[in-house]
């Protein structure tokens, strides 16, 4: 270390190279990433990939509650994990799917400000939750009282997203149907707030395994286009 200048230059160069290659250039090239059109002949599909955006309003609730601490949104290829073979983790809800769910790709998260790939996998992966999600009413029950669905669950009860209110007149058509143990006192009902509604919409919109243009999966799916 002959002098201050050389030393600082050394520090800058050693860190600058990975900074440039790993962060700056990829971040700038990412800006050019756009949806790709399906080829009607090859893929058998029309429109653009990825076809449907996620529900951004509900994602804000997901973000602020820190759901990504326990739920990932990323399917790994089969050589790294069995994610793809888990029942119902993709579009195919069959008992035993013929092919594994395809691993997630960069474009699947297009349009999201920050992809919530997740910190740990305490609960199941939610990348393609929209396909296997139950009806909205049951989803609300799961969010309001997770242990009414699975008594071993370690998921927090998001009762702050619901309102317990006195029944005035007929019972609200949005009111949650809960087992007695988890329900409100008699004469009261539990209704979702708009935040809970948008969170559920977001969860239902999580479908990240649309066929990729030009890939064999797209060809296979062409025989049986997405219906749901």
């Amino acid at each position: 270390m002959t002098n201050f200048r050389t030393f600082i230059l050394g520090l800058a160069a050693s860190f600058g190279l990975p900074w440039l290659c790993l962060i700056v250039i990829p971040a700038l090239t990412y800006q050019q990433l756009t949806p790709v059109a399906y080829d009607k002949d090859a893929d058998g599909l029309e429109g653009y990939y990825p076809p449907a955006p996620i529900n951004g309003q509900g994602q804000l609730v997901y973000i602020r509650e820190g759901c990504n601490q326990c739920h990932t949104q990323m399917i790994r290829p089969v050589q790294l994990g069995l994610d793809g073979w888990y029942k119902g983790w993709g579009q195919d809800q069959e008992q035993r799917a013929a092919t594994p769910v395809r691993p997630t790709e960069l474009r699947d998260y297009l349009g999201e400000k920050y992809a919530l790939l997740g910190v740990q996998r305490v609960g199941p992966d939610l990348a393609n939750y929209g396909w296997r999600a139950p009806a909205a009413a049951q989803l609300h029950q799961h969010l309001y009282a997770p242990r009414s669905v699975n008594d071993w669950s370690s998921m927090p009860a998001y009762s702050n997203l619901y309102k317990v209110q006195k029944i005035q007149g007929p019972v609200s058509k949005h009111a949650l149907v809960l087992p007695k143990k988890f329900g409100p006192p008699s004469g009261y009902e539990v209704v979702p707030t708009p935040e809970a509604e948008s969170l559920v919409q977001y969860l239902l919109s999580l479908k990240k395994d649309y066929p990729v243009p030009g890939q064999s999966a797209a060809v296979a799916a062409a025989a049986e286009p997405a219906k749901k």
Partner: protein
Amino acid sequence: MQTTPDTSETDLKADNLRRAAIDKSVKAPVLFLFTNGAFWLMLSTILGVLAAIKLVEPSFLDGCPYISYGRLQPAHINALVYGWGVQAALGVMLWIMARRSGQELKSGKSLLITAGVFWNITITVGILAVLMGKSTSIEWLEMPEFTWPILLVCFLCYAWPIARMFGRAIRPEGFMVSTWYILGACFWFPWIFITANVALHCLPGLGALGAGIDAWYIHAVILLFFVPVGVGCAYYFIPKITGQPIASAQLASAGFWTLAILGGWTGMQKYMGGPLPAWMTAIGAATGVLLLIPVGLVGLNHHLTALGKHSAVATSPTLRFVFFGALFYPVSGLVLAMNSAFWTGSGLQFTQSWYSFQVVSLYGFFSMSVFGAIYYIVPRLSGCEWLSVRLIRNHFWFSVYGISTIVIMSLVAGWQQGADMNNPEHWDQNFMNHVLNSRPYVVSRAVAWALISFSNLMFLLHLLLMVVGLGRRSSAPTLLYSHHDEHAPAHA
């Protein structure tokens, strides 16, 4: 500078006076950072207990939405990183740099204090915001967007005088390995911090790449900020207390530059097999393993330096903490390598071993080294000695057992979770097995954090007594296992 042999007595006296003047010049900011940091540390460990409890029993303190696991865990980590970690690191950096460069802090003391106050206010607001539901869910950057420019400016207020000291005192023939690390930390942290925040908050949205950049940010802050400060501490205090020069200049230099070159590449392997371009995760995995080289070089150097002087560990509290921290450096390197390599990482991905890595590097290695530094620095600044051997000893043992428990348990839990996840028989099962199998490990984590919180409470009280000048008035330092100190009267 570490040892001053064959100097005449007048020189020694002048030297001591000069050191006293340097200590006096940095006293206010350094003590400010240490006490506030210790407060955040205690808070963070308490939040850690709560988060672990909530992970096992989500209905604990039911009806309080502010402490659901998804909000508590980020608050716990942010308090540990920004409340304790960065503040304590800045205090140690400022003191070591002033001492090593032989420079007094000339001016700007009030600016430093102001920056410290703003840092603490911002962290308080940020962590409260996370608990109130304003989290960004960007790991380690969960505090709301407006906090980062303030934190950056506050950090630069400290980094600038530290870098100036280095610049003024550099001697071409000098061998200043601890200050290399500290200058590196000063220089890299703002760079990493700006990069991650601009990319994640200011650019129009990077999707999955943003998640990769966040993973890179976490690794870079650990490897290029916390690790250099911890290693800098070890390089300063091990020779100082054992009285031996650093064993090898070549090893020191190689250890530093390999860390500098490799540190910036790693991180994205957190999302191996994910949507990121494969070369990014591959290069992160490769460097994550290659980082064993600097880790090994530094570990070897420390081992050679301390060779034959291990008995000093029994008496000096500083050396004991620093030594333990230095032992945990190779351990954190190993945990990183295991998480990084595709071979083991595919099982450990998205499991508690990720938490294990954060705790071992931030607490086992960095914090333990910094505790050692604090036990050395504070008596010199406050003009009194540590009150109680017992408090120090308790702090040490509770921390050692607590941290080891968390690190080992989280690693084993990670292995278990990975095995469950990749068990073909679970393909059509729900998550009951995963949840039930990982529960005991989280319980042990809660217990360990509770022990650590207890020791941190004692540490905080001890430190506060020292800072207000209620320490022992004595010319002899407080040493562990030396009988005349055991029975020293505690002057209040």
